[in-house]
């Protein structure tokens, strides 16, 4: 709740120019930067692109965010900016190819990790975005529609197809309920 209070204080118009406002932004940044970077990394397939776009996303957010946004709206708006920047990058350069993610830990099952990487490598950027927003970020179809600019009605079928495609590369015997 303390974080939410700081973020709400920062969202007050003109507040970002003050020390308290910057502290509010810092709280929002700490809450959202990691998942946003993860999204950009997996949707673009490149950590360097994710680094660039993450900074650009927050700069654009600071320049454009509407007064009165709550934390959920700010988060949704951040993902929307990030998605637009990602699409612009894919359109302007042909760097959508997925690269091997950097080795950063070994806590997860190695086979599953390789399966996920293979699945992501075979998916289109749009499919990676949908899967990530739905299953990692836990966004509703309406939120995904807002973040991607797609029609809310088409999200369900597009997500279904992306899931089917990803499912071909993942092994269902590891399901744990």
């Amino acid at each position, binding site marked *: 709740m303390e974080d939410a209070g700081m973020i709400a204080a920062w969202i007050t118009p003109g507040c*970002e120019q003050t020390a308290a406002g*910057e502290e509010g*932004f*810092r709280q929002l*940044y*700490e809450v959202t*930067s*990691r*998942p946003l*970077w*993860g999204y950009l*990394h*997996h949707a673009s397939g490149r950590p360097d692109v994710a680094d660039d776009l*993450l*900074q650009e996303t*927050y*700069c654009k957010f*600071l*320049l454009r965010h509407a007064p009165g946004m709550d934390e959920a709206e700010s988060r949704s708006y951040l993902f929307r900016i990030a998605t637009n920047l990602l699409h612009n990058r894919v359109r302007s350069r042909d760097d959508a190819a997925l690269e091997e*993610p*950097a080795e*950063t*830990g070994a*806590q*997860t*099952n190695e086979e*599953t*990790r390789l*399966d*996920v*990487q293979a699945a992501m490598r075979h998916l289109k950027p749009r499919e990676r975005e949908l*899967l*990530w927003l*739905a*299953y*990692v970020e*836990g966004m*509703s*179809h309406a939120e995904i529609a807002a973040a991607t600019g797609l029609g809310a009605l088409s999200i*369900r*079928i597009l*997500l*279904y197809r992306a*899931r089917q495609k*990803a*499912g071909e590369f*993942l092994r*269902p015997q*590891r*399901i*744990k*309920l």
Partner: protein
Amino acid sequence: MKQMSCEHESGVIRALHSGEWSSELRLHAAECADCRQALFIAEALGAEALRVEAGFRPPDAHWIVQRSRRMAREIAMRRVALLLAGIRALAAVYVAAAVGWLLRGYVAIQYREVASSMSGAATGFALMGAMVAAVFVVAGLWPILHDRPGQG
């Protein structure tokens, strides 16, 4: 082939993230192939997210704020420069129109007076001088009208 996912899929994924499972939803997820697949993919992607994000070191928030302020200043400067360029172009058009309007009446009067007192050769020489002057005026206006914003 079935083309739509299970209507409970969103609820199942929400339950996975919140940890709040109802017994009906848990039973459904165990029996529904779509929800089982969605759950498996969500767990696999979630584990991959944790693994990759563990190595991420975000840049300092203060640095992002400073960069956004620089961007805001640059955008404001570009807008002002564009406005000034527009004003200068309008001013140049206004001056050209005003000079043309003034000269139109003046030249008509002067031409009648000069033509009545000058020979044919002197008239040609005067017209050539006027053309040279016009070329210099256009050359002088050119850099003003083609000055790009942001070049000072």
